[in-house]
């Protein structure tokens, strides 16, 4: 199971947070701070796995992250997930973002948090991996966007 997905930038500013277990808002912020603290001090050429987040999970949990330019993508998972599999999944997620936003950059995430959520919802659901095929994900996201657009047009025509 995936317990949480966090995206924050090089300064620790959250860009997307998705907890699959309930934490109160202040605790969520504390977890983001702690995770940022753990992840940010690591060089880029060390491994992408990290144990020892004290606030979330405990001994069975692991942080698996990737660092792209200005953003950190952190997945907090338990031992039922394959470590390398999750790394691949982050890659799939980022490539999907890239396809949906056309050359994604931090600004896209800043201004379209809701859209990023909708894309993520097609990849992970309730902490379990839903789909790993990028084409399928992109197709479903686009179909939903088209539906949204058609509704907006109905509005505009009134």
């Amino acid at each position, binding site marked *: 199971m995936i317990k949480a997905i966090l995206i924050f930038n090089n300064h620790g500013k*959250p860009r997307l947070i998705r907890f699959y277990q309930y934490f109160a808002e202040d605790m969520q912020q504390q977890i983001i701070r702690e995770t940022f603290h753990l992840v940010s001090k690591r060089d880029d050429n*060390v*491994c992408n796995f990290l144990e020892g987040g004290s606030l979330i999970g405990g001994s069975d949990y692991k942080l698996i992250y990737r660092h792209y330019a200005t953003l950190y993508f952190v997945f907090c998972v338990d031992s039922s997930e*394959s470590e390398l599999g999750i790394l691949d999944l982050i890659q799939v997620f980022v490539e999907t973002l890239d396809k949906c936003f056309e050359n994604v950059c931090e600004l896209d995430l800043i201004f379209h948090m*809701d859209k990023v959520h909708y894309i993520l919802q097609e990849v992970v659901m309730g902490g*379990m991996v*839903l*789909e790993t095929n990028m084409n399928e994900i992109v197709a479903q996201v686009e179909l939903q966007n088209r539906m949204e657009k058609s509704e907006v047009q109905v*509005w505009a025509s*009134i």
Partner: protein
Amino acid sequence: MALKIVKGSIDRMFDKNLQDLVRGIRNHKDDEAKYISTCIDEIKQELKQDNIAVKANAVCKLTYLQMLGYDVSWAAFNIVEVMSSSKFTYKRIGYLAASQCFHEGTDVIMLTTNQIRKDLSSPNQYDTGVALTGLSCFVTPDLARDLANDIMTLMSHTKPYIRKKAVLIMYKVFLKYPESLRPAFPRLKEKLEDPDPGVQSAAVNVICELARRNPKNYLSLAPLFFKLMTSSTNNWVLIKIIKLFGALTPLEPRLGKKLIEPLTNLIHSTSAMSLLYECVNTVIAVLISLSSGMPNHSASIQLCVQKLRILIEDSDQNLKYLGLLAMSKILKTHPKSVQSHKDLILQCLDDKDESIRLRALDLLYGMVSKKNLMEIVKKLMLHVDKAEGTTYRDELLTKIIDICSQSNFQYITNFEWYISILVELTRLEGTRHGHLIASQMLDVAIRVKAIRGFAVAQMATLLDNAHLLTGNTQRNGICEVLYAAAWICGEFSEHLEDPMQTLEAMLRPKVATLPGHIQAVYVQNAAKLFATVLRKHDGETESQAAQETSQLLIDRLPLFVQSANLEVQERASCILQLVKYIQKLQQKNVEVAEEVTALFAGELNPVAPKAQKKVPIPEGLDLDAWINEPPSESESEDEKPKAVFAKEEPKHSRSRHTEVDEKELARRREVRKQEQANNPFYIKASPSSQKVYDAPGVEHIPVVQIDLSVPLKVPGMPMSDQYLKLEVERRQKEKAERKKKEKKKKREKRGKERKADSGPESEEDITPAHQVDIVTEEMPENALPSDDDDKDPNDPHKALDIDLDKYVPYCRHLQFIHVLHIVYDIQGNHQDESKVVVSVIFENKSDSFLKSMEFNVLDSLNSKLQRPEGAGAHDSLTVPFQLPPGQDTHAFLFVSSVSVSIVAVCIDCFLMQSDESSTHEKLDFKLHFTCTSYLITTPCYSDAYAKLLESGDLKGSSLRLEGINMPFHHLLARICFHHHFSVVERIDSCASMYSRSIQGHHVCLLVKTTVSIDAKCDEPSLLGNVLDEIKQTFSKC
């Protein structure tokens, strides 16, 4: 109306949208909080408007603010409003907001049940999808109970997009409502073979998650998974299955044997590292499960170790990390294969990556032996010196201690060396683990009697140099060590060379800066030392030294008497008075030494940490019973009565003041004393018998005399290194001696030459340098050595421990002995309401292959099998699969039917004995269609419900259930689940429920906690049957 909409759209143009909000926050970096608070005020205004577009926009902005840490739960009701919008755009916003901020404590969640049910059955697949996604994040036990049936139906939806979501969410439903697992399981299992790979992967995912927690219930699925493993090409699915096998093999070694070959093939063939790694992991799990019975898998172990070595040597840090992780699993059962890679692992200790260093440390823990312990610890000590950052250094420190103390100090051959290591560790700056070192010192000094002399000397030096440890305020974690030092010096003071000097060190004014609990130990042990000094000078008349000691104490103790710490103050003043009295006696030349020593006589034995818990409760003692009359209600407004004894939560630990008169107190004290006197586990003041318990692992530690010929101090080296050097020398000497004995004829000189090329020593050759007498910890006499005290009773997965192979009470079973086992379940068809779906599971119980099965259904008056087009009314239905022995599979029948009936079915089947011979068998059975199978869970709002009851079209009847003692919500859950009802409203002691038959008859129930059911329905025959079935359901439990 049109005007209102136009006005709404114009208003909307002036509202901030999400992008404006983000931009605004970025432009107000200096006063962000203030800006956001004005935004929240705006949002509050927007939420008050009727226009749903404005509301949705506001909720979207709130979702963003929630990410920044703002609590937005106050808008929960507005979120529900947006969720119920008919527009997908807004619905999506609402569900996203709900998934981010709803949780079990959100009270408006109960308002969402009907909305979610509506969305789940929406004709638009994305409405359904969004509802499923949202629900997966905030499902509560109530929602799970009410919606389980709807979601189960969605698992057979025509669109794979919905199927896979429905399958995944079932896991969350199981967690919240475990009762749903059993009926949903057949369908879940069937999804393992769904034509869509996404759905298949989701089903694998859910079953893996379930099996990980309770593997034994899923063993029967192994053949199915085995088939999937050999046929699937999806790496994700493969990884999950292989991981699942890793969890199953410990329970079924035969499975492991079968797995080795295909896994080995995968290891050789796959190019995906992730898959390779999981294969290696599972092979390791298999080998572990086989290790007891089958020793002939060294080739597989070699393959694993070899592959892992490649991973560890890889330049990719991730692979290196995982390689080490997997290596530690092999280590547990096959330490020898890993130990040969010690060089590689020690190398990883130098890695720049902390995660990798920590993994390597973990491995070292299992790699130590008597032979290499000193060497490995020496290497670690070097790292401690080099390490940057206190976290890693602390980690090293705990690891060193773990490594040395593991399994009752099994690998330590020289305890003097260990004490020196501990003393060296005290020089570490800024460590948090002072108490850990201290407890090790105490442990060793108490349990290894032979070492006490040495330990006491070391501790005395520590006390003497206490200023080094306490000088820096930042280092105060380490001063815990002084606690141990003081106690050891006091308790074993007979070993001290110069007790007077130590006593002086313990009473320095500087000591007053130490934490209170340490000072207390200082004071108490100063008294013990005092006793020792007196005894030393016993017999000398008018001993100057003894009197000087008394004077020293009298001079120094007043400092402690003024201490702010109560414990210190109390002990100091007590001892001060004692010493003053002794001084008087000394002046009169009275012999006091013996009496003073008697104060501290006796030895404390170590007690096992779990001992207290294991003390059996004496017969007739009821810990839950009141000792006093319970206080009257008015006294305890803030505390619940009874909770004080019933629960162990800390918040209740505050003791209650009850007033008892003096006599009663005195009486109780007397009783308690009596009890303590009779209680073997209570540590008494009298000298306890010097029991030495034999540790189970002690016998194999050989006992040798201390090799006193070895000089103890080599100048110019850190202490522990000396031991390493001496140990090496000693071993060589021993070996040389052994060799000498073996080959007496050879000259000594040649024997020495030989040592360079001699093979590795075996473990048994190494003899400890010390007479080791490790005292085990005491346990109560009749305590049971159970190890399951550590299980967490609150684990939600415990409730899912359900034996799924056992017969399900609410699916119907038919068994034809030795041939076929059939389970069937009947449900109303949501898509076409004139039909019901019969799902049938066939299980081949025979040893032979079942081929070409045919269903012959005899249609009855009011039920008809739906046959393929063009088929005649009496044609049989061919079952579209064959059944190998021991396997099961599913089929669906669609039956048009209108009311309660029995359908006679006959199956023709051919049993293939072998390729040549086959037999034909005819099996007759009947499917019972109960009337609640025709009910479809339909939501109903309370106002519509009230109208329905008022209309007067319904006839009533009622039912009393006897002997039911389950919680009310369980009762409701059962009715909902088994009879397809939904709860309309629940008020305290009663609940109204509703359901509709496929022909549109309404059924209303009023269930009361007194377990009576009033039912109303517009079809009297249906009414009677429903009540009969409900009665039957509850008579079974």
